[in-house]
């Protein structure tokens, strides 16, 4: 399914199994390889759920440390991404309980590559701003459901497993979140359209 596609993109099945086995035996280089294979999954998800890079890095660090301490529990390499999604969501939830939502940092220009033209950079920055603002208006559970389902591309069943809820609940949360985000984006562009006309 979607998760399997993500797994395939991450690296070869055999390579990941070898890395897990070696890391379990205490090989830090193998664990670093494992981190490299899954760091995008963890950091990008954490960034969308927390809303800022500093918190996302804290969460990622926590997730990988938990992974290292629980390598024995990861039975098969293909189960790892699902485990990482679940732990990342939980770690974001824990962070939010410990530390109330901080003022989101301005990430305009943060993710822009140096070589692109200013027009494209501006478009990308605005797109990112819309994404951040629209996720910020959502309640925590709806945000998690939308991020995993629509941005990370997991199936409803996989999202339900990661969030520890039923598929019906996930469908409802995703539907509400989509409606809210759409309303927000409409409102975001409507004054501009009016101004242009």
């Amino acid at each position, binding site marked *: 399914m979607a998760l399997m596609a993500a797994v395939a993109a991450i690296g070869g099945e055999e390579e990941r199994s070898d890395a897990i086995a070696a890391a379990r035996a*205490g090989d*830090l280089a193998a*664990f*670093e390889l494992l*981190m*490299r294979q899954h*760091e*995008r999954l963890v*950091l*990008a998800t954490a*960034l*969308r759920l927390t809303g800022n*890079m500093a918190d*996302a*890095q804290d969460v*990622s*660090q926590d997730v*990988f*440390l938990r992974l*290292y301490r629980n390598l024995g529990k990861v039975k098969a390499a293909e189960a790892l991404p699902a485990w990482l999604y679940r732990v990342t969501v939980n770690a974001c939830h824990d962070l939010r309980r410990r530390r109330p939502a901080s003022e989101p940092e301005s990430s305009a220009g*943060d*993710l822009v*590559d140096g070589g692109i033209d200013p027009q494209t950079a501006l478009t*990308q920055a605005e*797109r*990112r701003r*819309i*994404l951040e603002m*629209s996720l910020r208006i959502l309640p925590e559970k709806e945000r998690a459901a939308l991020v995993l389902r*629509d*941005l990370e591309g997991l199936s409803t069943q996989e999202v339900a497993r990661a969030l520890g809820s039923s598929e019906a609940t996930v469908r409802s949360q995703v539907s509400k979140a*989509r*409606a809210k*985000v*759409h309303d927000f*984006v*409409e409102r975001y*562009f409507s004054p501009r359209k009016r101004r242009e006309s």
Partner: protein
Amino acid sequence: MNREETLELLREAHREPIPEAHYAAVRARVLSQLATERRPWSSGIWAYGFAAAALAALLIAAFWPKQVAEPVGQALSPVNRALSQTGLASALALAPAPVEVSLGRRKRLPHHIKGAAPYRVIGPPISQPLVVKLVTSDPNVVIYWIAGE
């Protein structure tokens, strides 16, 4: 803009690559933490060694045999030694019997008694004879004066 277009806009923003520096920072933090946790036990052995040495020193100090005091007889003068050998010293009770004086709780005195002794003396009555030892210029001549009750 319909809902699908909105979602596509968000997906495009989400797909933008995160700079490598952010990933590298996370990796460095994780590996540094793991390296600290996995530090070999031998690097902290000096602390264990110091603790063991301190414990050993305490045990040695606690169980070290105490020096045996010299017998009393050897420190006595010839007269006292002779007395102790004949058993006369115990009869004379060279050392006075201890008298226990307790500072008992201060009793509240009646109003009409003023200047009374505020302390009471608790202990057995002094029934042993009073011994006065007179030392002469000759070390072999000692005079004992014993007074009864």
